[in-house]
């Protein structure tokens, strides 16, 4: 019953999306103007219906209604409740439903609160949003219905992939989707502005909070996903250049570029066509990511199912949306008037540089991700990994980071290096000092070396915009910028330190034996069986000590066996200190050699300053939140002042 309700809500939402599209388009014409009033309410109801459908799916998962095919295939009655609920989006259909729900709610939210855009641009925007939603509704209803019933009802479900049975699943996909799909709003704004040709600072100011919101969620989603992969997969790595990671990185790169260009447009009325194009590209990257992941065309842990019909369907959707938007851009971009000019040394120029470099990195990542597909079409099976991605993206990231030290200090429109040069003496000295220090410590390969010295300079340079200002009066968005840029330095330091100074140790130990990894003494105390709600495990008790006189701490890595579906996972145990993380994984039992006694495989890493990678990521997101709060507060203030003026005028009878 609940499943049918959900399906009905989904159909209704799809129908309303069609209505929203038609009414929005007709509302732009003279004769259909009266239809325009219907668009906002329809958008809101459409979002709520999608939410209802999603709630129904969550419900059937929570109660494990096995007569629903999706539940039977992906859930199990013995799972803890939190994983039953999170399992709703741990599969293809459920995650696509989450996608359209977020998209519908996003559109509804825009319709509810966005009042700054001219009404015609707003209509075109909401029509664009409905157009994109409609395709994904069609995809769900035709090619991947989440509410399909199963007869006869099985006695038990197949269970959820144990790698996904983790709290990470509860947070990572929803935040990432909020970011992915939030970019659809920027996309629709860009379409709307192209249709009505109204591109200017007012448009940019209206668009900025939405881009910022989506970007914050993307940043958090990527950071959380990276940390999840780091501790769950037990490989000790935090970024694998897996197609799916690239699929989330590419929209982030485009959104970061968009965020900066939209600021230029809002403050200086420059980079008009460029900003619009980035709006189109950012969401296109989200859709390409979905295509890569959901179609099963690339090998990935995230490829839930391989179904050619689905792949073709998403490919057609992609061609329509991206091709259509780019065609519209090609037709209309020439008619968007030129923006203001600026000198080669100015904040605008620095931001243009940042944009171009981000786009180049985006191109590198996109090309590397798609190359295996191209090669396969030509008959060669290849995979592309860190030896390509790391140096190639660094080639463009390094100049960008250097400019990042200078850019925020420059004035708009025109500036000279002489004015800011004095400020940069300390960062330059820090770069040199860090370089000497790293050489003395030794052992750092080229890329981590560059990363470490840049991080030192950038950490100082990023707070320079606060210099000489009354800190209480610095606007929130400036704080946001400073904190986000500082976060980049922190994260860069963590990444470089992790890849330069990590120490790995692989041993087979008997109970009672001790081994060293970096500054740690690790003693295997015992290995005991333990049991959880739907798994059994072997748990190693490790007693670890930092240095010679450190406190002895216990760590409990497990090798888990799940029975539904039958699968082994290794649960790593992590110990965080201020200067790094000890990472331990329990392997299997090593066959006894000549001597008697069981030996257990252990894989140990000491990763200096690794937690800063994700700490920096969160700082970047925090910077975004502060900027968003600052903008929203300013908008609210403006609205209330306007209202006051209006009511005062009314009182005075004017």
């Amino acid at each position, binding site marked *: 019953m609940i499943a049918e309700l959900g399906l009905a809500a989904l159909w209704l939402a799809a129908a309303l999306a069609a209505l929203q599209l038609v009414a929005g388009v007709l509302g732009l014409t003279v004769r259909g103007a009266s239809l325009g009033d219907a668009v906002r309410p329809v958008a809101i109801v459409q979002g709520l219906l999608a939410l209802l459908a999603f709630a129904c799916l969550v419900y059937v998962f929570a109660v494990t209604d096995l007569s629903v095919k999706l539940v039977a295939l992906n859930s199990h009655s013995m799972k803890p409740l939190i994983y039953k609920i999170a399992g709703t989006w741990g599969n293809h259909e459920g995650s696509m439903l989450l996608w359209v729900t977020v998209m519908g709610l996003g559109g509804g939210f825009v319709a509810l609160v966005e009042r700054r855009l001219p009404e015609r641009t707003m209509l075109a925007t909401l029509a664009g949003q409905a157009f994109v939603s409609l395709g994904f509704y069609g995809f769900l209803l035709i090619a991947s219905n989440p509410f399909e019933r199963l007869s006869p009802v099985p006695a038990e479900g197949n269970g959820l*992939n144990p*790698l996904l049975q983790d709290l990470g699943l509860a947070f990572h996909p929803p935040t990432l989707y909020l970011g992915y799909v939030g970019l659809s709003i920027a996309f629709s704004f860009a379409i709307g502005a192209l249709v009505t040709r109204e591109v200017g600072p007012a448009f940019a100011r209206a668009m900025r909070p939405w881009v910022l919101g989506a970007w914050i969620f993307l940043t958090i989603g990527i950071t959380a996903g990276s940390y999840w992969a780091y501790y769950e997969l*037990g490989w000790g790595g935090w970024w694998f250049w897996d197609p799916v990671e690239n699929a989330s990185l590419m929209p982030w790169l485009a959104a970061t570029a968009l965020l900066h260009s939209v600021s230029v447009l809002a403050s200086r009325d420059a980079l008009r*066509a*460029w900003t619009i194009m980035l709006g189109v590209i950012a969401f296109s990257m989200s859709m390409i990511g979905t295509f890569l992941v959901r179609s099963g065309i690339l*090998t990935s*842990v995230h*490829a*839930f*199912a391989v179904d050619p019909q689905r792949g073709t369907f998403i490919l057609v959707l992609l061609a329509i949306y991206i091709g259509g938007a780019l065609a519209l851009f090609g037709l209309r971009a020439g008619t968007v008037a*030129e923006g*203001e*000019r*600026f*000198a*080669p040394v100015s904040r605008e120029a620095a931001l*243009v540089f940042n*944009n*171009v*470099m981000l*786009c*180049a990195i985006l*191109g*590198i990542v996109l*090309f*590397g991700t798609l*190359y*295996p597909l191209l*090669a396969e079409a030509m008959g*060669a*099976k*290849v*995979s*592309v*990994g860190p*030896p*390509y991605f790391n*140096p*190639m993206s660094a*080639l463009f990231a390094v100049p960008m980071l250097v400019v990042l030290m200078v850019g925020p200090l420059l004035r708009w429109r*025109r500036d000279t290096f002489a004015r800011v040069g004095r400020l940069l003496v300390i960062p330059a000295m820090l770069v040199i000092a860090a370089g000497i220090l790293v050489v003395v410590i030794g052992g750092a390969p080229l890329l981590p070396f560059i990363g470490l010295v840049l991080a030192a300079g950038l950490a100082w340079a990023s707070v320079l915009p606060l210099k000489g200002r009354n800190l209480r009066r610095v606007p929130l968005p400036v704080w946001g910028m400073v904190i986000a840029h500082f976060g980049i330095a922190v994260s860069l330091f963590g990444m470089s330190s992790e890849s330069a100074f990590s120490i790995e140790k*692989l*041993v*087979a130990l008997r109970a009672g034996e001790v081994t060293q990894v970096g500054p740690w003494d690790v003693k295997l105390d015992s290995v005991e069986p333990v049991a959880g709600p739907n798994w059994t495990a072997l748990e190693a008790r490790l007693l670890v000590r930092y240095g010679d006189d450190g406190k002895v701490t216990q760590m409990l890595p497990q*090798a888990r066996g799940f029975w539904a*579906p039958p*699968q*082994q*996972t*290794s649960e790593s145990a992590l110990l965080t200190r201020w200067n790094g993380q000890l990472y331990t*994984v329990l*392997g*299997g039992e*090593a*066959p006894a*050699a*000549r001597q008697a006694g069981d*030996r257990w*495989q252990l*894989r140990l890493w000491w990763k200096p300053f690794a937690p800063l990678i994700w700490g920096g990521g969160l700082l970047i997101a925090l910077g975004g939140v502060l900027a968003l709060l600052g903008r929203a507060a300013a908008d609210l203030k403006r609205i209330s002042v306007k209202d006051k003026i209006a009511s005062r005028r009314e009182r005075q009878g004017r």
Partner: protein
Amino acid sequence: MAGTVKAKHQRLVLLAIALVVLVAAVLLSAWALRNQASYFYVPSDIVARPPEPDRAVRLGGMVEKGSLKTAADGVTIHFVVSDGKAHVPVVFRGIVPSLFVEGSGVVAEGKMGTSGTFVADNLLAKHDENYVPREMQNMTRAQAKQVVAETQ
């Protein structure tokens, strides 16, 4: 200088710079990909045409029955990957994926050593029923049964 540049010209200059950088990025990546992409081999290919010793490649096939041996240190393993026609010895130091057993499919990432032994630094085994390395999919359909039968 900037004062004399017309808005239209500035736009063209910016466009040109962006295009040049993007084209450079694409050309660079095409060049790098040719050198860095890691090719997939089955045992008979790698025996017939071995890759250069320093090149990262992937080797896929079936783990031959009775070939899996653990060295005295407890963490180094030796096994033989076969596709029914050729056999390649593989050495790997690390914790093997739980689904890695004799007779199962495996993709080993690593380099071909000079002595004809493949030095793997990562092993990918069949993760679960939803995740099969794509190369193995074709292979299991076409050859797996035969290979398993032969290697048993």
